[in-house]
């Protein structure tokens, strides 16, 4: 994948934030995570990143409701972390709490998570 994808996702996230799409429903992520984000034009053909599926596959064991609610891990919506910190946390994990994903997720996939998480509106605020 490539930077276009994460940029595109970020754009979707920002648009959603400003438009307030779905923010009223506490159980709905701000960014519709099912939205497949493909870069156009996409230089190398790659599988589109679907954050929702990726979240369900990798994070949901610990982070509830696509990151909108506290579960075994904290609520991700409204995180105080910067994008760079979020990237690092996903890549490296935290000993005894969260596995690192740098071996199983690509940089683009982690970027997509960062954009998604930073784009989540805190349902409790």
């Amino acid at each position, binding site marked *: 994948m490539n930077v276009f994808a994460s940029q595109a996702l970020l754009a979707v996230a920002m648009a959603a934030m400003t438009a307030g799409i779905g923010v009223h429903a506490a*159980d709905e992520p701000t960014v519709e995570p099912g939205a497949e984000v493909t870069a156009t034009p996409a230089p190398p053909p790659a599988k589109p990143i679907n954050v929702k599926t990726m979240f369900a596959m990798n994070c949901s064991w*610990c982070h509830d409701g696509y990151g909108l609610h506290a579960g075994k891990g904290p609520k991700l919506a409204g995180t105080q972390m910067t994008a760079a910190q979020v990237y690092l946390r996903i890549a490296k*994990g935290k000993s005894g709490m969260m596995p690192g994903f740098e071996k199983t997720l690509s940089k683009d996939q982690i970027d997509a998570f960062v954009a998604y998480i930073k784009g989540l509106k805190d349902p409790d605020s």
Partner: protein
Amino acid sequence: MKRWSTRLTGAALALSATAMIGISMQAGAVEWDRLRNADKDPNNWLMYHGSFNGHHYSDLSQINAQNVKNLQVAWIHTPGASKRGVQSFPLAVDGVLYYASASGQVWALDGASGEMVWKYQAKLDQDRSEGTFYNPYTRGLAVGYGNVYIGTTDGRMIALDMKSGKVVWDKTILTVEGGNKGFTGAPVVVKGMVVIGSNGGELSGCCGPIFAVDAKTGEVRWQFDTIGGDERSKASWGNDSWKTGGGGGWMTGNYDESTNSIWWGTANPAPDYDWGGDKWKTTGARPGDNLYSSSVVVLNADTGELKSWFQEMPHDAWDFDSAVGEFMKIERNGTQYMVHPNKGGIIFVYNADPANAPLKVENAYMVGKTFNYVKGVDPKTGQLMGRRELPEGKHTNVCPAIDGNISWNAGSYNPNTGLLYKVVQEWCFDIEVVKADAPPAFSGQTYFGASWTSTHPEGRKAFGHVSARDPLSGKIKWEKEYKYPPLASLLSTKGNVLFVPGADGIIEALDTRTGASLWRHNDGIGHHGGIITYTAKGKQFVAVATGWGSHVSGNYCPLFGEPFCSMPTDNGQLLVFALP
């Protein structure tokens, strides 16, 4: 004590330290004869489930319903940082306590005073050890043939000299290529072998194996693949999906000498949650029954060959696997039964004769109160009735949540009262099931297909209960509700005491006959580990593991708030109680 080991005595004499000599001189070898008769040896706690009866019961009665109110802390051991708490069961052998804390630490302590005898720290492959979510906890040890055995989260089995803590052998059993699984459950020693099951129900690697390694050398004697190991299993996974099917046997099973059989419960299939819904026989991520996931398997102890099985959750759609829970052997009116609970809150009563294949179900009953994932279980056949499938899409108020009505904490059967004591937890979740992409076969990557939020049962707050029942009929004698479901194992004794280590840090002693509360003590942090009793220098002690941070305990902050939101998850101790 049965036997004196010359090696032990010699080494003990060489020691200059004070208290250590007394301990070492007492330590007898734990040979097979001692292990198979562990139920007749209440002074010691020789294996995870106490004895091959699997009762988590002790014949000791110095501490009893009359005097338990005087119980007080005798000593405390603090292992230092123990990520996700201390989840393990201590073992007690001839006055020495052995226990494991997180990240491969093993401690040997004087059972009467808590003084350290030795400590061992396994050097773990950190990447591997913390790369999956089953880390870095360990749930216990086994002893036998002069060694203490531990399985590690990076897939090794290690034997330590019981007396010195020195490594006798250290073998890699599970590799990254082999599915990236590891060991979190306690091993059990059976006839010169150490038997252990792997974790990894949610990892896309076959074959969820259960191993027997030689107790003296660590060489693998046999391996049983819980999935994909035989044609019957393969045929029950459409599209060869067993290759990404998870499996495992993450908790400690049992051995039944009367039939020379290993009884083991197996983990859920991967992916956890299958979008196929009620068409699961033909479609979805893993079409078919998915044998032998979420099953009980009965193996020839010498060869690991499958003698019999029963799949408690055909095509497990809820992660209600059978790996949790004890195998309690109970005899009544000349018939031998094996009683086994699973995460779905069903207690299966099997005929213990594995000549029946699949196993003969003598009874099955539900112990949850708020469940709605099935309508019930057929007591005659053990088949689920009225399944609630979870196809792709949103589902609200599914009960219980992924954590189950029953977790991996063991119950207790008391032969004096004839009652089975068991904790049940009651909460639910809203879940959305998605079509997950299958990771590469055998890759060991996480294979999950859902996102969820824990919720309270309809009309009331999440809660727990401890019940006392006839284990065979399920008939309730008494029941006590808990605001916070206990997550630790139970212990009952001949002194008519039932110990319930609570989630909020309170350990409570109940009267086994009535459930009346006899004693409470605040241990300062939640419990979700083991509890045993033993004697040292002629005195009865009760040892309990404390510490919080297991996956199931992670629900308590969102469900209940404090004290759980402020409870540390990298801590824990071993607390030991005695009468003054």
